[in-house]
Structures are given as structure tokens and as C-alpha cells.
């Protein structure tokens, strides 16, 4: 089956599969290539995704406009790969008629693109079936071991549970500091989870762009039967994203989940040149109610790893020493390098 690759959570895997194609959400390792000078201003994740997709055998590559770096990387990618590239408009506003109209229009345009790369017109019943199958997979408890077929399928499509499972448990091991992570997507091969564990902490909330925050809303069965495309759009437009204007919904989600999971500290893991997350670091520190570590990353190198481990360890020490690992604090702290 031909494979369609994407990284943005606003691309519905259900829609791709309903067209008879395989949906592959790629979160490639971000390598900091010291042999070349880094391109000033270019997001390392956008660069890695472009290079990864161009170097693999995909039938089509889907970028979105959810961030300007990806929007522009799509054009560069299209110039340097023979594979078909599709740029999907993802609205920044969410509560307007325009946003819904744009998103539904883009789903239909994506569908036409998928047909040009080997897909077929989706049958209405098949679409509903695929949507419900994904819904059931999302309904699985997050504490699943990750080795069931549906859990692995979910990992492939949505990536979020993988990070939680790698952390060892979703409820946090006794005696460890309970951390949340927010920010840019965390690559499949990232040592981040190991680094957190080594520092004596457990991730109990993955609010990164590859985590559970970016899951679509539950589909309403009646609406789904009436108009599956409109319901798919409604569910995906309900995702909380930092790129939304205003992005209050994203902050509300974070505050709610930080409290519900008893998170003791939040790591903002953002890529260098990612303005969307960078600008919000102070607001995060002010609003989530727990200390925040602002961790900038440009890729996976030994030097970067050592620096990251050191900073996470310092953060955990502060949480344990100053605020006590067993109680939550309302003191906001932004630690920067």
C-alpha cells in the first residue's frame, strides 16, 4: 500500500486511510549536523522532516501551514524532491466560519491529491468505519504496555503514547518527580525520555506537539453518520495548538491537565528558531502553576545531550530541594541557559 508521510497532528490519518493509502506520521530524529553550517533561522525539526521525507520512498509528502517554518520548508522540499508534495492550509483561527470552511475545503483538496498518488474516492461507510476504528484505538487506556497491535498502530499514527510508555508508566513511579513536557514534536529516537528518567523523574504528561494534547476530539456518532467529513473537521479543529489565535484553549488544556495529573514541573522543550513556543515561555511560567524549565534544543549530539541532562537534573534537584518532590508548588520558575 502506498504510504503518505506527514508530521502535523492536523492531518487526519483517517482521511488518508479512507482513500486506500497508508498514513505514516514521521517524527524523524533531529540531527545537529556539525559537518555543515546550520542554516540560520531554519527550524531543525522542519529541516529534518524535509530531509527525511525526501530520502524515503513515500508516495506523497504532506506539509501544513500550522507553522511558518513548515509552510516554507514545503516549498524548499518540493524543489529538491521528485515526490509529490502537498501543502495543507490549517487555519490559525478556530472559532470562525472561515476556519471551518478552510479546513473542510482543504480536506477535500487533500483527497484529490491523494487520488493523484494512488488513492481512491473514499466510500462513505468505509470512511465512517475507519474513523470509528481510530476512535476505538484512542479510547484504549494510556497505561497499555504498547505491544498490542492497536497500541502499536496508534504509536505509528499519533506517536504520543510511545513517549509515555518509554517513560515506564503513565502514573509515575513512586518517589520520582512527576514532570510534564510541552513544546515541539519529540522525535521517535529522541533520548529525551531516558534523560528525564536518569534525572530521577517521570513524564506523566506529554503535551508536546507529538503528544496527547494534539489528539482530535471524540467523534459524535450522530454527526458522524450525518456528515463524516464535517465531523472529522470538527474533531480535528478542536485540537489545542500553540499556533491558534488566540491560543487560550491550549493554555486552558495545559492548566487542566497539569492539575489533573499532579504534575510537579513542566519542561518546555522547544526547537531553536521556533517562535511560536519561544514567545510563550514567560506566559507558560506565569500560568501553569508549576515551575517551568525552558529547554532549547537544536538536535541530538553528545554535547547537546550532556547539556540537556545537566539542565534536567538541575531542574529536578530544584523541584526536590526547594519545593519538595511530593507536593505541588504554585511558584513559577523559568530556568534558562
Amino acid at each position, binding site marked *: 500500500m502506498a504510504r503518505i508521510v506527514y508530521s502535523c497532528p492536523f492531518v487526519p490519518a483517517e482521511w488518508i486511510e479512507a482513500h486506500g493509502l497508508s498514513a505514516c506520521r514521521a517524527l524523524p530524529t533531529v540531527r545537529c549536523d556539525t559537518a555543515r553550517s546550520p542554516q540560520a533561522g531554519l527550524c531543525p525539526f522542519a529541516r529534518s522532516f524535509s530531509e527525511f521525507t525526501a530520502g524515503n520512498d513515500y508516495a506523497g509528502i504532506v506539509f501544513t501551514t500550522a507553522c*511558518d517554518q513548515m509552510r516554507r520548508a514545503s516549498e524548499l522540499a518540493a524543489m529538491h524532491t521528485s515526490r509529490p508534495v502537498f501543502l495543507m*492550509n490549517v487555519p490559525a*483561527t478556530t472559532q470562525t466560519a472561515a476556519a471551518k470552511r478552510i479546513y473542510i475545503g482543504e480536506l477535500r483538496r487533500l483527497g484529490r491529491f491523494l487520488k493523484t498518488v494512488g488513492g481512491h474516492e473514499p466510500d462513505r461507510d468505509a470512511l465512517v468505519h475507519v474513523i470509528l476504528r481510530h476512535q476505538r484505538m484512542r479510547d484504549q487506556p494510556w497505561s497499555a504496555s504498547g505491544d498490542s497491535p492497536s497500541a502499536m498502530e496508534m504509536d505509528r499514527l499519533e506517536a504520543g503514547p510511545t513517549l509515555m510508555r518509554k517513560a515506564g508508566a503513565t502514573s509515575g513511579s513512586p518517589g520520582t518527580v512527576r514532570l510534564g513536557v510541552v513544546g515541539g514534536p519529540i522525535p521517535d529516537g529522541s533520548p529525551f525520555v531516558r534523560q528525564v528518567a536518569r534525572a530521577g523523574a517521570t513524564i506523566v504528561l506529554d503535551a508536546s506537539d507529538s503528544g496527547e494534547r494534539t489528539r482530535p476530539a471524540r467523534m459524535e456518532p450522530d454527526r458522524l453518520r450525518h456528515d463524516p467529513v464535517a465531523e472529522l473537521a470538527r474533531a480535528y479543529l478542536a485540537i489545542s495548538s500553540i499556533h491558534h489565535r488566540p491560543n487560550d484553549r491550549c493554555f486552558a488544556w495545559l492548566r487542566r491537565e497539569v492539575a489533573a495529573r499532579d504534575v510537579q514541573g513542566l519542561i518546555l522543550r522547544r526547537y531553536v*528558531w521556533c517562535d511560536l513556543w519561544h514567545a510563550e515561555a514567560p*506566559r507558560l511560567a506565569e500560568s501553569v502553576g508549576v515551575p517551568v524549565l525552558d529547554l532549547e534544543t537544536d538536535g541530538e549530539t553528545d554535547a547537546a545531550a550532556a547539556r540537556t541532562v545537566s539542565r534536567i537534573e538541575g531542574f529536578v534537584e530544584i523541584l526536590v530541594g526547594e519545593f519538595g518532590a511530593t507536593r505541588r508548588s504554585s511558584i513559577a520558575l523559568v530556568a534558562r541557559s
Partner: protein
Amino acid sequence: MKDLGTAAVLACSITNVVAFYPDGAWWTPCIMEHNARLLEVADSLGVPESFCPVRAMLGAFVTRDRFPIPDLLVCGVGATCDDFSAIAQRLSGMGHPIVWWEMPHRRPPEPGEPAVGLPGGGVAPTEQVAIVEAELRRIGQAIAAAAGQRFDENLIAAGIRRGNAIRAMLDELRTMVFTADPCPMPALEMLIAEMLAIHYCSDRNETDQVLLELRGEVERRVRSGMGVLPPDAVRVFWVNPVADLRVMNLVEDVGGRICGTDYMFTHALDAIPEDCPPMEALARTALADSMAGPVSQRADRICRDAARFGSQAVLVSRIPGASHCATEGAIIAEIVRSRLDLPVIEIEVPSNTDAIEPGLCTRLQALVETARGRHA
């Protein structure tokens, strides 16, 4: 904020409304020789120099001593740079309510899809024009409500005609200056004249007068063969505005002159259509924004204008930290070189170029000498 030219026409058409772009604060550090300390304030708010110099706007909203805080803030988002979007969101988070409107990425029409022509020569799908039209109508209604007025599209049509008169005058001025030899008006003065088109510096009547007088002066100089630069100055097409305005003088100091520009608001220079309903006309203008579409289309326009004005070299001025600047320079350079066989260089211009001025001059000199060598 951000759309640079379209919402201002809309706002200025409504009785008792004055429009201005706080975006322009990005020149304040340069003009005030950094005494306004706007960038330092932005630093203190966690928006450091990895962001584009438009972060000065954030500082200006905090110090409140650069411009009056507007009664209503509207901001285009979607196909815009992340820097601006992120900074505008911070403003919102700091308690400045913003009415956001969606500016989708301008995409090429699909085969057989209904499309309309845009100012500047591009096309856009009719569907996208309709979406932007609805968004602008929503913004127009919000502005009218804030001013205690009724939203009247007849007034918008009149505002478009008035705006087009200014754009036409500016077009005449640019054409005269970019094609006359010797150059009758320096680059810096022309950059400021172009900026008037964005929001008339909040005074349409004064803008009329300034452009009228500039045009008269240029006509007089052209008639008498007077110029401000040597006749053999190399004709440079300039891409992107500079945060440090002195750099516009540097290119002239090393033997160049500006013949063609894309300061990121070419859509504010082109005539707004008058053969369609006013809100559709504004939507077409908004979608013509070179920053809202593919860079390759921006490069198309640069090639057309460079050929029209006889440019001998193209200079892409990178804005430090701006999300579009990481990739656009390479694409523009590749297209310009392949189509026009012109030398292209990319420079980076921060808000203060004191420390890098010798290096900048060397690069500008290299461009000018290369272009001159090719045309010798």
C-alpha cells in the same frame, strides 16, 4: 497588524477612524538610535534577538510612549511569519484584545478550479477570495462598531478610489525614479515614500501632499537631467526592508542605486481592483500579498519588476530571526539567476549595523563590481 496595506484601506474608509500599523515600530530603534530601549523591553519579556526586529512593537506597547494604544487591534494570521504571530499573541496575553482574521496561504488554483486575477499579476482560487472577503467584512464590521458607525460598503468603495489615487501617484514616482538616469531620488527617501502607501502614516491628506511634492521634484530633476548619484550607478533590485535604514545609503556609497523593490508590501503599491464589489477587491488585494503565497511566486514578481526597471543585480536583505528569511533567499536567488542571469547576494541587516558595517560594505561592493563587470 501584519497585513500591511489592506485593513488600513478598509479602516480609513470608515468615518471617524484613523488607521496605523504598530508593526512600524520596528524602525523605532534605528530612528531613535536605540534610545527608546524598545528592544531591551522585548528582551525583558522573553522575546530576544532570535525574533525579528518587529519585537520592538512589543516594547512599544509596554512603554506606551511611542504611539497611543489603539482603540481596536486587528491582526491578520495564517500565512504570516511566526515572529509576528507569536508577538501579537503575547500582546493578546498581556491584555490587549485583538480581533484576529484568517489569511490563508495563497495556493495555485487546481486544474479547472474557478480563479480570479489578483493585483500584481497573480491568480487565486475564487474560493479563497470568498473566504478572505468574508473575513474582511467581519473586520470592517468590527471597526465600524468600534467607531460607532454603520458598516457601509459604499464608503469602502470611495476609500478604495482614494487609496488608488495615492497608489497611482506612487507608481508614477517609482517608475520615474527607477528608470531615469541619473537617479533623481535616493533610496532612503523612496523607501519612506513607499511606506506611505501602507497606511498613509495615518494622514491621507498629508500623504497626498508629500507624494505630490516628491513627484513634482522628481519631474523637475528628470527634465533638467539632475541626479543625486553618478550616471553609471549600478541598478540594484532590493528585496525586504532593512531594520537599519542607513544601509540604504551604503549601497549608494559603493556605487549602486535602487531600481526596483519588494519591501514585503508590493500588494500595497498595486491598484486595488475597481471593477468588482469593494470587499472582493480588498480580498483580492490581501491575497496578492507576496508573503502569503509561495516564494516562487514572489520571485516571479521580482523577476518581472527587475526586468521592467532594468535591474543589473538583486540583493536579498535578510531580516534576522524572521521565519521567512531562513529559506526564501535561496529560492529567490535560484530563480533570479536562472531566469535573468543576474548576480544575487544575500545580506543580513540587524537593527544596528555599526559593528558589521565594514563587512556589509564589502559585500555590497562585490555585488556592484560584479554587476558592473558583466555590463562593461
